[in-house]
């Protein structure tokens, strides 16, 4: 068990990275608290797996350090770091039985027979595999194999962190939910640090206490699911999380007042300090409503999404999406929109104006 600190990590797959784009990880500083449930969320190719492989020791970072508690483990091999990892495609040792698979990490470390047997049976109970211990691992279904991969991590008592690299990719949809809640339950029982990599926001938000959102090799925000939804620090977070994502509308600022088209818009943050190339207003569709007087707009499209409808409007020559509850009437023509001030924010070059950037560590 340990607190994991990533200190100024940078990684490139090239020999001599020059341009910004050559870095798979631009610079990452995160502290993962002992026993936390974290998700690492981001689109494909954003550097999630690279970061994970650096923590597990499968990859050596180009620059920076990794600390487990206060020990520098940057140069350590995976087996010296006492970590466990569950991969996207289930890894089981085909020729072994379920029991032998679970015992394998212990046998490799020379743990005695009695202890091994005890641990294997405990873990088999954890992952509901007790009745299948003598079966060949090869014959299991994908979710069974994934449980075995997880079990091989749990069986060791010295594990600092268990990492999951999109572990539900090959699992049938109806089993995904079950396995996910199983993981959550498991975390509460064993209180091990878990890092869950995914590009699926539902998986991330349901599993994790803290979500680390990554984009193009950097961490853009670390926060609770509520933080990410209500206070996105970056337009990418606003857009990536939520369905549909946040409206991001180019705007102008004059004398501390934000203008969308020709109309002033009240924002929650202090617009006075706004500087930078591109200024944008960010507002989630949930916080846009029809009003008596506001920004003039017209309705383009209404699509039904079950409990609510997604209304697409044009306002100041831009597309503004809003969520309207079932039963609320949608005005036919010449509508006016109002933005909820507390949830309207000004962003400069993608980052929230006056925000505290990435929010430090993942405390």
């Amino acid at each position, binding site marked *: 068990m340990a607190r994991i600190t990533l200190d100024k990590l940078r990684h490139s797959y090239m020999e001599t990275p020059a341009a910004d784009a050559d870095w798979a990880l631009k610079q990452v500083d995160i502290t993962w608290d002992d026993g936390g449930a974290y998700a690492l969320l981001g689109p494909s190719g954003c550097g999630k797996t690279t970061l994970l492989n650096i923590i*597990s020791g499968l990859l050596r970072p180009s620059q920076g350090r990794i600390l487990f508690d206060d020990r520098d483990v940057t140069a350590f091999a995976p*087996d010296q770091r006492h*970590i466990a990892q569950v*991969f996207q495609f289930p*890894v089981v*040792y085909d020729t072994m039985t379920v029991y032998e698979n679970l015992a394998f*990490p212990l046998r490799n470390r020379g743990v005695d027979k009695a202890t091994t047997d005890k641990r294997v049976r405990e873990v088999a109970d954890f992952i509901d595999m007790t009745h299948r211990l003598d079966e060949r691992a090869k014959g299991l279904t994908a979710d069974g194999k994934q449980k075995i991969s997880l079990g091989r991590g749990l069986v060791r008592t010295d594990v600092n962190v268990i990492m999951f690299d999109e572990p539900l990719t090959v699992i049938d949809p109806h089993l995904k939910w079950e396995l996910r809640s199983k993981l959550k339950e498991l975390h509460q029982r064993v209180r091990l640090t878990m890092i869950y990599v995914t590009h699926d926001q539902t998986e991330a938000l349901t599993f994790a206490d803290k979500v680390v959102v990554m984009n193009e090799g950097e961490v853009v925000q670390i926060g609770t699911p509520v933080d990410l939804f209500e206070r996105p620090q970056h337009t990418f977070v606003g857009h990536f999380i939520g369905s549909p994502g946040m409206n991001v509308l180019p705007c102008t600022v004059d004398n501390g007042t934000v203008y969308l088209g020709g109309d002033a818009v009240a924002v929650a943050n202090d617009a006075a300090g706004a500087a930078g190339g591109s200024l944008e207003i960010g507002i989630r569709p949930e916080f846009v409503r029809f009003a008596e007087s506001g920004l003039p707009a017209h309705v383009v499209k209404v699509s039904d999404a079950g409990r609510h409808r997604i209304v697409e409007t044009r306002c100041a020559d831009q597309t503004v999406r809003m969520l309207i509850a079932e039963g609320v009437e949608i005005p036919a023509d010449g509508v006016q929109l109002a933005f909820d001030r507390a949830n309207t924010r000004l962003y400069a070059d993608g980052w929230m104006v006056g925000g505290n950037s990435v929010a430090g560590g993942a405390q």
Partner: protein
Amino acid sequence: MNKTVNQKAWLFVLPVFILVAFNAIIPLMTVVNYSVQETFGDNTFFWSGVLWFTEVLQSERFHDSLVRQMIFTFSILAIEVPLGVAIALTMPRKGPWVPVCLVLMALPLLIPWNVVGAMWNIFALPDIGLLGYGLNALGFDYNFTRQIGDAWFTLILMDVWHWTSLVVLLAYAGLVSIPDAYYQAAKIDGAGAFAIFRYIQLPKMKRVLTIAVLLRFMDSFMVYTEAVVLTGGGPGNSTTLLSIDLVKIALGQFDLGPAAAMSIIYFLIILALSWVFYTLMMRNEES
């Protein structure tokens, strides 16, 4: 529903039947035909029953060449399979050297068999060949045309040179199909190099290795060209393998009956041993 009987349907099978008859059944039946008849020339034949079969099975000559054949086949299998796997394990899995290695490995397989035999014959000549001359210069008394041990050494070395590549390529194909995650998981599980080989690489190579062993078994059991060009079965009869002996009987002595009986026995041995190999190696597959 009543099925209508239409015998004309047989016509559709006829072309295939004719083709198979000409390329397999008729030649094979000719051999069977010879194997149960006796002739004194003049194209007259007499029924002789299983005479030739009992004669071949009891002849010391056949026993000797069968034993030589077994020694040859199992020696080359014992060398080529482990060596091929070992070479495949050391080959790079990624990078610019992959095609270079593959081409180098494939080269011996592209050389015609009689050329391989001729090459090695000259290569091993004690007076002018690099191998023969070199060994003698180093103080070994090496002469593959006169000494039985040297003849066998050269014969097996030639086959290893010629055919290990096949095992390497097949084993390599099995190795590169293993996803990286297996190696990563093994590292995390603390597995050493031997455990990785035993529990990941070997099981994943099993199918291709089965094919490799079967191919090498069948091919080496039927080896003729290279061996006959290299040693001609000599010195004496010391390297006369089954196929060489068969040709001597059939074409050298023109003993059609015994040669035909021997062909059939030869064929049945290969068939039976292939079946045994396959069954043994696939025994655990079903479960």
